[in-house]
């Protein structure tokens, strides 16, 4: 493993501010980013990443690789939860296994963004349609998660209050239209439309969506460091099985992702982003959906694995590691 790439990634402001947040919790400083300020930054990041993706999508066009890549991404978000579930059932009950499985099928937008800034520091290009893949991988895993619960736990007594028909409606609604998917897709479409019709106004958006982006990401990661570190205690209670799962499963998913990227002949930048999508786990859309649809599952389990371990692992070690994986597995481009 090329440690210089890991070190290069470590010594960037986003990762260092993440560490600063972790440290604040470890030394019990009273540093905190009070609500709703973290929400401001997460809304901003989704809006900016979507908008920028839309601009790039307009420039690159919906060319040859777009549909296969997006198709493969959606397929991964359906398959990952299924094999994750089978692994998790070894030790966990159906509710918790399904909720964690859904988490790993979905994605983490912040990990994706951090990977983008890593690519920029490596001067490697990537395409706007990867943001579309990001957006489309959030929802399917939520639906699969609930399907798994229904298959594995057909207890009639534990039904959600209210008419049964409404249940699926609610789940689909939550999966497709939760705020993070909605804002991401909406901003993507806006960026796409504006790039074609109003180049003048694109210029005027860039100081907000582009110039501020890196600093705002760093600030947000300070909060993510605090929140992730607060989960470390939960993790200890979760036990060795889940700790192992939350590192090994991303690695396995990354490997599968890299192989798919090879098959799809993705360029290294896009390949890294694809791998990161496969390897990351959701601590935004999915936990919110699971809290509503599978309240029997323990939120501290699925949040602490995705946020307390997989997320730090990915942004600190994972991204440079996956970069090397991509460099090895992908044929060099002439």
């Amino acid at each position: 493993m090329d440690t210089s790439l890991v070190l290069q990634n470590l010594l960037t402001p986003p990762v260092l501010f993440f560490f600063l947040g972790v440290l604040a919790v470890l030394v019990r400083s009273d540093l905190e980013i009070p609500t709703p300020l973290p929400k401001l930054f997460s809304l901003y990041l989704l809006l900016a990443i979507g908008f920028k993706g839309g601009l790039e999508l307009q420039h690159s066009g919906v060319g040859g690789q777009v549909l296969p890549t997006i198709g493969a991404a959606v397929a991964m978000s359906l398959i990952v939860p299924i094999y994750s579930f089978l692994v998790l059932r070894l030790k966990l009950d159906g509710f918790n296994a399904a909720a964690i499985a859904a988490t790993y099928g979905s994605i983490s937008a912040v990990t994706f963004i951090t990977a983008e800034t890593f690519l920029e520091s490596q001067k490697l290009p990537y395409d706007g349609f990867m943001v579309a893949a990001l957006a489309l991988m959030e929802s399917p895993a939520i639906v699969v998660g609930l399907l798994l619960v229904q298959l594995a736990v057909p207890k009639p007594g534990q039904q959600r209050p209210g008419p049964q028909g409404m249940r699926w409606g609610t789940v689909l609604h939550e999966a497709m239209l939760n705020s993070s998917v909605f804002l991401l897709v909406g901003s993507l479409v806006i960026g796409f439309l504006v790039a074609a019709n109003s180049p003048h106004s694109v210029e005027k958006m860039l100081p907000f969506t582009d110039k501020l982006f890196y600093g705002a990401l760093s600030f947000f990661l300070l909060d993510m460091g605090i929140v992730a570190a607060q989960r470390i205690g939960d993790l200890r209670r979760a036990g060795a099985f889940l700790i192992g799962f939350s590192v090994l499963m991303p690695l396995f998913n990354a490997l599968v992702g890299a192989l798919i990227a090879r098959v799809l002949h993705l360029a290294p930048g896009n390949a890294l982003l694809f791998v990161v999508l496969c390897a990351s786990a959701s601590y935004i859309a999915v936990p919110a959906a699971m809290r509503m649809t599978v309240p029997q599952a323990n939120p501290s389990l699925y949040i602490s694995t995705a946020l307390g371990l997989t997320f730090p692992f990915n942004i600190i070690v994972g991204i440079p590691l996956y970069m090397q994986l991509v460099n090895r597995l992908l044929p060099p481009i002439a």
Partner: protein
Amino acid sequence: MKRVDLILSERELDAVIQAIEAAQAPGYSVMKHVTGKGPHGAVSEAMDFSGLGANAHVIVFCEAEILPKLREGIQPLLDYYGGVAYVSEAEPL
């Protein structure tokens, strides 16, 4: 008059308010951003950025007649999702 205090997850707030309106309570008040701990573990605001939200505290001042209807609408939600509901006496100022 009775005073009903409900504390439950913000995510179930809409359903609880529907139940309160269905019981024809004369009004209600809601405070969000409530943190706490109960049988289902601790709830903080740290995950608020993710859409998970914290708890809400709902106060309803109403006549005793309304309580059975209120209980009927709210108890299943509390049983399934967690949360607490208590009643005390209150007189108009």
